[in-house]
């Protein structure tokens, strides 16, 4: 039996050798250099190195003279664990930073911060949200990050008139429920989809775009607005499942379709292995993903394949705001992630309200409703449905293993 095992091992090694021999003779890895690889595509989009922050941006520190009861509490409700925990962590770190800065400079107003875990699961969200609404000290909430859970719980906030600003949920339908307590701190998918389409066809010069969407609320919604905006540039589409790891069938369809760009409407958990397998099969075009894909994790998990990736995001590159980036990394030992600054800004809006004496739910809700000032990332003024009036979409790309901004794209 031992002899047999040894023989098999030898056979396996021999086979491996034979096959790897073939690969070593090949030229450099496909996708290792993104420039010009896509035949006619303009993949070498210049990188943005700094953005202008609004001069009059409101900061959490305020004037340092605020007073408030020590029970005043803001809460984050959203994923702390579960598959999409990273997004939640990015957000509540941003909030924590804002509250820390506020409390440090306002000895008379120490705002407490509470976190409730929903795992990002709509069915698990009612418990924590109800609990938060029952705690009278909580006068404002940042959350919930995902569209599904926001949809499931919006009416609970509405019942008790508790204001909440979502720093990440982008489904356009959320603001059509007649909720008066829901505010969205970023542009929705109806803005992002067309921006992404224009980016692909104009900036990148893609002629044939293949669209792949996942089965999430987010992916489907964004997929629809992008499809509509792409028009004839769309040559095919496919759907994948949350949690899927093997994309070979989808990839063979893409390869046969001769697409020069792929838009993936979903999250990085599937987007990263998808791009990695796509490039491993020899795809030379561009991979474009929305904010759900834009994450450092994407680069980690897609490896070198991520060199062909571009992102669109209604989020502002927080890392380009030096004061924010350094304070954030001092707090968390990591760079700001997607939606960190949105969390920070949303908290700032509420902290500013508290500082101005709006220290119960009704007043704070009123404050947010009538808010009209710039945050670190953008100008915050909501319409009567709770949508931002002037959202911006930024483009990003992967360069030297990092996600870097390439400027506003719509």
């Amino acid at each position, binding site marked *: 039996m031992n002899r047999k095992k040894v023989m098999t091992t030898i056979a396996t090694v021999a086979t491996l050798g034979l096959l790897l021999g073939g690969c070593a003779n090949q030229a450099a890895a496909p996708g290792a250099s993104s420039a010009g690889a896509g035949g006619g595509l303009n993949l070498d989009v210049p990188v943005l190195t700094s953005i202008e922050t609004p001069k009059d941006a409101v900061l959490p520190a305020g004037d340092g003279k605020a007073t408030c009861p020590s029970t005043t509490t803001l809460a984050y409700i959203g994923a702390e*664990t579960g598959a999409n925990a990273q997004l939640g962590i990015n957000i509540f770190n941003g909030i924590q930073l804002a509250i820390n800065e506020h409390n440090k400079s306002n000895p008379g107003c120490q705002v407490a911060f509470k976190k*409730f875990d929903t795992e990002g699961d709509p069915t698990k969200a009612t*418990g*924590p*949200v*109800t*609990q938060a609404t029952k705690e009278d000290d909580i006068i404002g909430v940042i959350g919930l990050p995902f569209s*599904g859970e926001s949809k499931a719980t919006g009416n609970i906030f509405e*019942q008790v008139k508790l204001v909440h600003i979502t720093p990440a949920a982008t489904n356009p339908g959320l603001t059509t429920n007649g909720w008066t307590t829901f505010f969205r701190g970023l542009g929705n998918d109806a803005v992002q989809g067309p921006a992404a389409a224009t980016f692909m066809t104009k900036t990148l010069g893609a002629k044939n775009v293949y669209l792949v969407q996942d089965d999430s609320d987010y992916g489907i919604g964004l997929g629809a607005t992008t499809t509509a905006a792409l028009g004839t540039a769309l040559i095919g589409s496919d759907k994948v499942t949350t949690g899927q790891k093997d994309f070979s069938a989808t990839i063979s369809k893409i390869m046969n379709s001769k697409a020069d760009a792929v838009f993936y409407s979903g999250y990085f958990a599937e987007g990263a292995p998808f791009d990695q397998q796509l490039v491993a099969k020899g795809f030379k075009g561009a991979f474009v993903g929305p904010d759900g894909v834009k994450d450092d994790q994407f680069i980690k998990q897609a490896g070198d394949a991520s060199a062909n990736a571009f992102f669109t995001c209604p989020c502002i590159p927080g890392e380009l705001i030096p004061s924010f980036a350094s304070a954030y990394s001092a707090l968390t030992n990591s760079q700001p992630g997607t939606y960190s600054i949105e969390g920070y800004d949303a908290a700032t809006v509420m902290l500013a309200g508290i500082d101005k004496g709006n220290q119960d739910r009704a007043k704070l809700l009123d404050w947010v409703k009538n808010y009209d000032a710039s945050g670190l990332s953008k100008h915050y003024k909501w319409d009567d449905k709770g949508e931002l009036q002037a959202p911006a979409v930024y483009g990003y790309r992967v360069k030297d293993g990092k996600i870097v901004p390439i400027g506003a794209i719509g």
Partner: protein
Amino acid sequence: MSTIDGPTPLPGAKASQAAADRQASGNIPGGSADAVRKSGWFGRWSEKWRAMPRQKQWLYLIVIVVIAYLLPVINPPILSTEPGNDFPLALFSMAVYALAAVGLNIVIGYAGLLDLGYIAFFAVGSYTAAMLTSPDSPFFKIPYLWTIPLAILVALCVGVILGIPTLRLRGDYLAIVTLGFGEIIRILATLIPAMKGQVGFQNVGRPPGMGPDGIPIFANSNGTPWYWLALTILIIVLFLAGNLERSRVGRSWIAIREDEDAAETMGVPTFKYKVWAFAMGAGVGGMAGALFAGQVGFVNNQKFDVVTSIMFVAAVVLGGTGNKVGAVLGGAVVAYIPLRFTAIAEYKYLIFGLALVVIMIYRSQGLLPARQRLLAYGHIAYAKVRRTAPIAPAPVTEKEA
């Protein structure tokens, strides 16, 4: 090969060996010493219970039920899931899990059919409620409370439809096929546009009634009325399950679980009763699903995954396979642990996993291993036996072993 190897009749050498063992252990077949040794303090407790006069049993039961109803009001400090989770809502979750576990107990505990796709029926119930009450659905609408019986009916039919082809399989083959069907139902919810995948249905209906503050009594944030509704349904279902248990139907199920071939030979239409077990379980699961959909107020395809399905099985076995009260306990515990330990959110599933292993190793029969009673008037007969046979050393009848 049946999945549940009930203690088989003892043939040949094993029989005499077992008989010798029994002699060695004091020659009290199924005697009290035996039982206590096997089931620890729970066993002693359940023995005391059996020994109680019926009036006293009722008294205790009423006290327990009243306490159960008062739980959300009392909100006992250590038990409470707050501040991480609203306690009445947590209780509601526990009641729904308990209800599902009681339903699954009919399938697994009574009939011995390992169903790993029970979530499918839960999902069917949820979707029935959602699609007939949510404004997002293109169907005709009916009041929410009507969807509960309808959910039972629809789930029951789905149970029969799925049961007829699959119940010809035995044991672990049945397990994987039901697991597959559970997945298929979930994926179909994604694929069929009318079921709206992850987009789901918002504003699922609720029972009527407005509070003084203009907020509906059955608002999805108001756990207490939901919990009372679920608890009431749970108690009714327990009664009905008890009726089934102590009847021809229950006996047929247990006979199938113990030895399917022998049951068939004794004139039990095994296939028919297996389908019935499947359908009954499905009906209860569908009802649990409809309740769940009503409270959450939002139904999409995310919750109905394999993991939840396996949680239900865990609830049944944890509580004590075949014991409906055990299933209630198991279901409540399985729902409770992750909700209770949200403060240490990262550890909750680890605690859950370890608890399953440890409990199963040290209490293989589950938390409440009491045996089901299968005769409506059995106590009369057994009492007669006790009277007429005083020679036997305290024959402990109809008790667990």
